[in-house]
């Protein structure tokens, strides 16, 4: 079964949906038949076989739905893994502009913080922290942010 492509509305394709409906319908029919059969007999010994049919129908439906959920979970995981690969491929390009600011010595932090950040770091965005030299931060005992300095030489 092919995984639905990017941009699909759901992690399942039409085939998986049809299979789910068919399996659940089979389970429902078995349960209904078992109920009808059991209702037609007054003695417990005559009903026992129909109980087995009903339980089997229920288990068939549960198996079909479990398969559906497992398939969906797998498709979502594969999609996420694909995106992680795309993000990793973009990482070298993203580190280019950051490297430009690395040498500019305009780094920000607030009093009491343990790390200093580049001005374009998501953590520092919109905070209004005044940029100061790196040595000032280092003398205050701060270390580089693990996000905006990721991949840089220590």
């Amino acid at each position, binding site marked *: 079964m092919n995984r639905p492509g990017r941009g699909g509305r759901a992690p399942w394709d039409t085939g998986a949906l049809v299979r789910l409906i068919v399996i659940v319908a089979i389970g*429902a029919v078995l349960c209904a038949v078992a109920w009808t059969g059991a209702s037609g007999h007054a003695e417990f010994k005559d009903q026992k076989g129909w*109980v087995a049919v009903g*339980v089997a129908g229920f288990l068939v439906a549960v198996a079909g*739905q479990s398969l*559906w959920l497992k398939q969906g979970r797998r498709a979502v995981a594969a999609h996420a893994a694909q995106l992680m690969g795309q993000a990793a491929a973009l990482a070298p*390009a993203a580190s280019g502009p950051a490297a430009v600011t690395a040498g500019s010595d305009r780094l920000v932090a607030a009093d009491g913080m343990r790390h200093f950040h580049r001005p374009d770091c998501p953590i520092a965005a919109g905070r209004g922290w005044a940029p100061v030299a790196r040595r000032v931060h280092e003398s205050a005992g701060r270390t580089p942010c693990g996000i905006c300095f990721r991949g840089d030489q220590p």
Partner: protein
Amino acid sequence: MKRLLGLFWDRAAAVGCVLIAAVMLIVGWVNVSASSDAGEQLPYIMSSGIGGLFLLWIGTTLWLSADLRDEWRKLDVIDESLRRLAADAPAEGEEETISLPETAVTTYPRPAGARQ
């Protein structure tokens, strides 16, 4: 309300199935309790008991499917953002900064405050 049901049809159906299942299980329990004959009890167990469990499982599957569908849509939004980011990346030798889109690229309708 109608729009909400249209947007959250899967979760609404899941809640409906679970509620109906609860009613069936309670009705089955009451009817089984009213009889001491196994031959009279078994049809109730078959209809209300197994039927209720059947609906309960369908409701659970619907709810989990809705979660997976939401997760899939979010991944699509991230995918679209990454593609835009790649398209905006500067050519070799340029020093332009890469800019992420300011607004999320979402194409599926969800009301304000809804679970995204």
